[in-house]
């Protein structure tokens, strides 16, 4: 740690390296023969260890490999790929799913590019030359690979959609390159476009009701808002007022055009939540619960630390209550009992009730993670904020929170990965997510009791591919925030 400033984030780059457990000296590049002798058979004990481990590993690899590539019967998976991904989604409406893939590929590509452009903008602003680290480039290729696999899985069945989807991923990658070249003051607008595309991608499946256009208009307005604000720093009240007024005007205009004009021009019907099945549900449930749980958790964490006893007690009670019960009990509550508490005339769908339960559950954990981050911000930061006359709320918003959230990215991503895997619990309350689909697959006469392990392995792989991608992404994010901004 820097002796000058113990509050400065630790720069992992210049830290003294830990004593290496490897042999002293620079890493040698030995010819294979000598490498084997030196690293694997350098004494009697290691030779024995090598022989035993190679035997065990070889045997295991052989058995697993033989199973995966020779004896395994993959036909339940291959025949039902489409079912695994979208379940009993009406096949006539499948173009919506494909359109969604295309739009979201563009969203991800553009969003990624905007993130890179933002990092470069901040770096140049602080007078540091922006170096795109090579690991980033490597990861980008890797990301494309995972995306390709997922897309292939989603659209498998017919060649046409698969080709379209692959092209869209390629286009997304292209957009990423484009997005990375966006000049600083346009980055906000690009983010708004990303948001609008994302919503559009969502609504193209669920239908263009009033809410869809509302959200799209919100993103357009946010774009205008961000264009008008000077990037990278919160502005004063006066500037904010003009900016917000302009954004509000744009919002109203955009919403009027959307709500009045577009329904006359295009088909607005969609396929509702209740017909969403397969791995799509796992992905969407995790994404929606993540987006909703984060702000809720943030508020809970702040409430738990607030000076108002009523708020503090309520937040603490909520967090401790939720953290003390298993998620599955909350899901069962959502399945059976929510209807009793909420006397709604139109009952909520099972998926949305389950989503509410998952959001409330995750929010409690996020709250504790954020609280940890808040505690890690030294009190001197709050004192410095107070000393220049900032109000307590501004001190929290401008000084404490940015530092706290950056410190807890890894823990938070861990929580979101865990949330994603927990979507498999929806199986128990009867949502047709991927595990349930697997059950349905084995209810087919052709596959009854046939290839049970294989389908399970496939489901595991689907979860792993996404979780692993998320975890790698978080590492990348961490590295960039840690090094670039300090």
């Amino acid at each position, binding site marked *: 740690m820097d002796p000058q400033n*113990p509050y400065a984030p630790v720069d992992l780059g210049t830290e003294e390296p830990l004593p290496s457990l490897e042999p002293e000296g620079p890493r040698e590049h030995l010819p294979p023969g000598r490498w084997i002798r030196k690293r694997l058979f350098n004494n009697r004990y290691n030779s024995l260890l090598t022989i035993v481990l190679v035997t065990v590993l070889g045997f295991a690899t052989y058995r697993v490999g033989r199973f995966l590539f020779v004896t395994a019967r993959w036909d339940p998976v291959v025949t039902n790929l489409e079912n695994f991904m979208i379940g009993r989604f009406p096949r006539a409406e499948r173009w919506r799913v494909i359109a969604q893939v295309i739009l979201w590929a563009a969203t991800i590509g553009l969003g990624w590019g905007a993130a890179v452009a933002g990092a470069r903008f901040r770096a140049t602003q602080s007078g540091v030359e922006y170096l795109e680290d090579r690991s980033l480039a490597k990861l980008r290729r890797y990301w494309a690979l995972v995306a390709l696999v997922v897309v292939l899985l989603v659209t498998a069945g017919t060649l046409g959609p698969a080709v379209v989807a692959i092209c869209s991923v390629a286009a997304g990658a292209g957009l990423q390159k484009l997005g990375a070249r966006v000049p600083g003051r346009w980055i906000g607008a690009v983010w708004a476009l990303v948001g609008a595309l994302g919503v559009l991608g969502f609504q193209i499946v669920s239908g263009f009701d009033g809410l869809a256009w509302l959200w799209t208009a919100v993103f357009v307005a946010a774009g205008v808002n961000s264009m008008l604000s000077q990037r990278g720093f919160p502005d004063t009240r006066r500037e904010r007022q003009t900016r917000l007024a302009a954004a509000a005007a744009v919002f109203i205009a955009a919403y009027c055009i959307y709500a009045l004009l577009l329904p006359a021009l295009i088909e607005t019907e969609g396929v509702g939540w209740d017909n969403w099945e397969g791995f799509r549900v796992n992905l969407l449930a995790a994404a929606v619960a993540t987006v909703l749980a984060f702000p809720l958790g943030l508020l809970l964490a702040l409430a738990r630390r607030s000076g108002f006893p009523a708020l503090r007690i309520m937040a603490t009670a909520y967090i401790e209550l939720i953290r003390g019960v298993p998620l599955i009990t909350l899901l069962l509550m959502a399945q059976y009992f929510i209807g009793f508490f909420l006397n709604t005339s139109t009952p909520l769908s099972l998926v949305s009730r389950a989503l509410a339960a998952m959001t409330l559950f995750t929010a409690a954990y996020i709250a504790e993670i954020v609280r940890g981050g808040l505690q890690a911000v030294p009190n001197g930061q709050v004192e410095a904020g107070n000393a220049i006359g900032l109000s307590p709320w501004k001190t929290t918003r401008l000084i404490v929170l940015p*530092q706290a959230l950056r410190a807890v990215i890894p823990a938070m991503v861990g929580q979101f990965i865990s949330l994603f895997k927990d979507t498999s619990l929806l199986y128990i309350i009867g949502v047709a997510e991927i595990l349930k689909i697997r059950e349905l697959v084995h209810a087919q006469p052709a596959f009854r009791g046939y290839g049970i392990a294989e389908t399970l392995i496939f489901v595991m792989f689907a979860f792993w591919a996404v979780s692993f991608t998320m975890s790698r992404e978080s590492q990348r994010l961490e590295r960039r925030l840690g090094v670039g901004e300090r």
Partner: protein
Amino acid sequence: MTNTNRENDDQAFADATAMRRSGEAMIELEGVDKFFGDFQALKNINMRVAKQEVIVVIGPSGSGKSTMIRCINRLEEHDRGRVVVDGIELSDDIRNIQEVRRETGMVFQQFNLFPHLTVLDNVTLGPRQVRNLPKKEADDLAMELLTRVQIPEQARKYPGQLSGGQQQRVAIARSLAMNPKVMLFDEPTSALDPEMIKEVLDVMKELAKSGMTMLVVTHEMGFAREVADRVVFMADGEIVEVGTPEHFFTNPTEDRTKLFLSQIL
């Protein structure tokens, strides 16, 4: 504000004395007590700081020096007595506290710069968020102040990229950006390497010359001797002795002061 010529200490002292007599007090502490649990950190502190006066507070660790100046901008709450800054008495009213904090700059031992903001943003944060200054004006003001503390070229860097001395100078610029009437310094050089102490002290001397009212807790006796109008010696939560630097370093009256000086000089 007039520029007092500090090279002539006697004249400066006479000025300050005159101002004190004229009753223009910037800070008044009357019978201030402060407890941390059962421990009494401040015992009946009485002090008046005149406008443009530079006061250096010295004393052994744990003597309550820091606690005292932290009571002046309410980073610590006093338990008894009155604290008045530029005519505003500190009470539980948050508006009073905010007003006093706006007029009081504070420099900390650990700098407490905001690590997630650039140097420029560190300095402009207060003017923009508290004084509602437009960005352009705030940036100009910040560059002016960074030039004054002699690091305008570091404006776009992050605090973590600067040396300790540079960081402390940024912290001084950040406080000055609020155009304060009083500057409080809480051991500003104690966390610095010896070669960086001078650059910070030079900035503080320049500030004193410009007529800023300053209250400085420090162990830098050279600074006290050269710049202070009065030196306050504290021990065990009490003010033991107050006097001009000349009186204080050559002819202290109290035994406790003599003991302290014999240990450090």
